[in-house]
């Protein structure tokens, strides 16, 4: 994948298939430790121990149509290629947490990319689910953050569906501008 935001889109699709109601995406860039971490936490159906053990094997999938599943293996590979780590934990009936970390300055780290596009597509595809994105940047001069929560937006929207084109496109601009401001000129 060319962007980490595409991995995020892909990994969150797993949460959606697991029937999660709330999906939390944490993105933390710590420039003081040269570490970028991406965590996707969901309250979906979770996995058995047996499935969890083999889930990063590309020849494992929950699909019935064919027997390969590349999403998690590719995410793991992207993390490890940049000197980072990958971890997944899950409990049946409780949900799943997927965490990957990346070396920010590694030449093999793919750029974070357009998070607003990923969020736009997720909201279009699953307007009834809720998404939280916590975006944090830590540098020598301190911590800056941007928190996005669809529950707050839906409250403001009242009876207007969140997946209307005009709403999605405003939300995308909102995310883009706030991330740019949080980054304060840093490039991820």
């Amino acid at each position: 994948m060319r962007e980490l935001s595409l991995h995020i889109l892909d990994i969150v699709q797993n949460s959606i298939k697991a029937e999660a109601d709330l999906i939390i995406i944490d993105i933390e860039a710590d420039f003081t430790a040269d570490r970028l971490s991406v965590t996707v936490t969901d309250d979906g159906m979770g996995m058995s121990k047996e499935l969890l053990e083999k889930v990063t094997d590309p020849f494992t999938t929950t699909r019935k149509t064919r027997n390969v599943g590349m999403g998690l293996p590719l995410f793991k590979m992207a993390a490890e290629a940049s000197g980072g780590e990958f971890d997944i934990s899950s409990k049946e009936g409780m949900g799943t947490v997927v965490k990957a970390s990346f070396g920010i300055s590694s030449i093999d780290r793919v750029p974070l990319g357009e998070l607003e596009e990923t969020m736009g597509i997720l909201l279009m595809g699953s307007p009834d689910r809720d998404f939280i994105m916590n975006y944090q940047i830590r540098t020598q001069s301190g911590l800056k953050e941007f928190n996005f929560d669809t529950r707050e937006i839906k409250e403001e929207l009242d009876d207007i569906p969140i997946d209307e084109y005009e709403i999605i496109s405003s939300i995308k601009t909102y995310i883009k501008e706030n991330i740019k401001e949080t980054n304060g000129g840093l490039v991820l």
Partner: protein
Amino acid sequence: MKSIADINAIREKMQKVLGTRDAQDDADTRIVIGMATCGIAAGARPVFTAFLEEAAKRNLGNVKVTQSGCLGMCKFEPMAQVYIPGKEVVTYVKLDAEAAKRIVSEHIVNGNVVAEYTLDIE
């Protein structure tokens, strides 16, 4: 939009738009884009955005742009299927944003299938 409070203005505008749209809605045309790992890796995200923006730009209120999983032919991704009521389903393959815009104007609006992107199985 810079803060959540700004959504109020958009909401008011939308309430008016939605009120008029319900009356003119007829049978839905659907554009379904494959958004599994294979689709995403091949570039389905900008294709989805292009379909959505082109349909909005042309005010095609009866066109729904949606997502599906893997269509089972990963090497042809990004793929999209166009469902127009009363017509045969058209499957498009190896799309990019430009192709998506053409499909909206030539196929959805004018009724001419964009043959160079259709699936041709030998």
